[in-house]
Structure formats: structure tokens, C-alpha cells
């Protein structure tokens, strides 16, 4: 498995992690480490590009859950937006939606695994890159 990183600018800067290959118990920690690396460099929003991920085991799901937790810790309301923003944060929290971590273009078999374990209810998966970046 290889990971490359690109950066996109929407309303906020977004790091795009392009994952290539198979994510299993031997490689999932590299995924977490890369997310930690971009987070340590100041990135607060990550889009994970799964276009080229042909296989993901439950270890990959651990990586997704870990990265979501890493980014959730930085969830701060935009106070300039007033109570509406605070209520939106509460609404997202209630719904369990991950607003700082999203997925892009999961392949059908990986998508099916995400569905089976209930991750798709809480992780948005986009198929249009511009739309994905703009969603943060």
C-alpha cells in the first residue's frame, strides 16, 4: 500500500490522502501515521481517496475510525457564525456525522464492507472531488 498526499482549497484547506493498493493488518498503521503526520502539520480536514483501494479488511476500518477520532478532537465551532454554527455542531454530533473526515470514491466491494459495518451512516462518501472538497 502507498499513500500520496495532495492539498485542495475549499472553504477550508483540505488534505487529500490518495491510498493505493490493499489495506490490511500489515499496512493500516501506515494510514493512521500519515493522517497523524498531516494533522501535526496543521491540517484539520482530511478527504481519503479510496479510488485505488482494491481491498480493505477490518484493520482498514480501524484506521478510518482512528483518523475520525483524531480529527474530531479538533472540532471547534466557528463562533463568528453565531448560535447557528453551534447548533449545527450539536446536530452533527447527535447524528454522529464526521464533519472533518470524509471519503472519496470507494470501490464497490470496499463500499459494501463500509455499508455492512455501518460506517456509511457516519462517513460521507463522495464521487465528485470538487463537491467533496467544498463539503468541508
Amino acid at each position, binding site marked *: 500500500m502507498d499513500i500520496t498526499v495532495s492539498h485542495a482549497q475549499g472553504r477550508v484547506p483540505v488534505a487529500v490522502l490518495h491510498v493505493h493498493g490493499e489495506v*490490511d493488518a*500489515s499496512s493500516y498503521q501506515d494510514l493512521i501515521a500519515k493522517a497523524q503526520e498531516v494533522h501535526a502539520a496543521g491540517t484539520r480536514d482530511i478527504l481519503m481517496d479510496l479510488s485505488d483501494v482494491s481491498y480493505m479488511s477490518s484493520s482498514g476500518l480501524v484506521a478510518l475510525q482512528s483518523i475520525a477520532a483524531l480529527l474530531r478532537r479538533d472540532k471547534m465551532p466557528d463562533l463568528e457564525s453565531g448560535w447557528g454554527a453551534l447548533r449545527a455542531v450539536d446536530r452533527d454530533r447527535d447524528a454522529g456525522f464526521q464533519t472533518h473526515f470524509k471519503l472519496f470514491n470507494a470501490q464497490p466491494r470496499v463500499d459494501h464492507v463500509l455499508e455492512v459495518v455501518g460506517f456509511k451512516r457516519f462517513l460521507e462518501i463522495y464521487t465528485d472531488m470538487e463537491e467533496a472538497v467544498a463539503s468541508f
Partner: protein
Amino acid sequence: MATLSLCADLGDLATVREFVANIGTDLGLDADVIYALQLAVDEACSNVINHGYRGQAGRIDVTVEPVEEGVQVLVRDWGGAFDPHGVPTPNVEAPLEERRLGGLGLFLMRKVMDDVSFAFDAGGGNTLKMVKRIRRRE
């Protein structure tokens, strides 16, 4: 019937998946069934390596064979006894932040295979038997 013996090493998981894919192709299974078999065997071997042998050296035998109802996979190891009843069922409805990390391997195995059963014998180790039923074309 084909058996692969491997060392308990996470670096060999790709080899196991390739072995399963090759057998599946030889048996004429479709790609979704092969993917299910790969996932189930990968999860089983990962559990054995991480929890059965706890990172110590050990051997795992993976056997794939056609049976009347479809295809059967046997995963044998000689690590610690595995008790599936000790594995909590994950709540896949809960938001991610309310879930414990991990614990989805056995759940996925049961989801993608039709029968999953474990047996332990003090002399013979653990044997995991999984069956994927395949509907025959008329």
C-alpha cells in the same frame, strides 16, 4: 483440495489472499465470492497472528476445497485456544465515537460467509471451518 502453510506473519496476508484468489479462479467462482473468501480468510489469519500467537512464531494452515453446497475453508493454528463467545458483538448502529476500536473481524467473517464454526482440540489446535454456499446455475 489445496492447502497453504504459512508462518504467522502479517506480512504474509497478501500471499494468503492471492492463494485464495487462485483457488477461487480455478474453481470458477465469481469475483464477489472470491472477495468474500479473501476477506474471511484474511480476518481469520489476522486474528490468529495477533491474538492466537500474540506476535510469536507459529504456523497457520489454510485449506480451500469445493464441497457439495459451495466452497469450504479450513484455517488451522496451534496458538492459544480461541473462544468466539468471548468476542463481543459490535454495535454497527452506534456512531463511530461510541464504538470500541476494532472488533469487526469476526463480525465480517460471519457476514460474508454462510457458516462459521470454531473447534479446539488440545492436541490438534484450533480449527476454523467456514462455508460459502454457492447457488448452482440450472
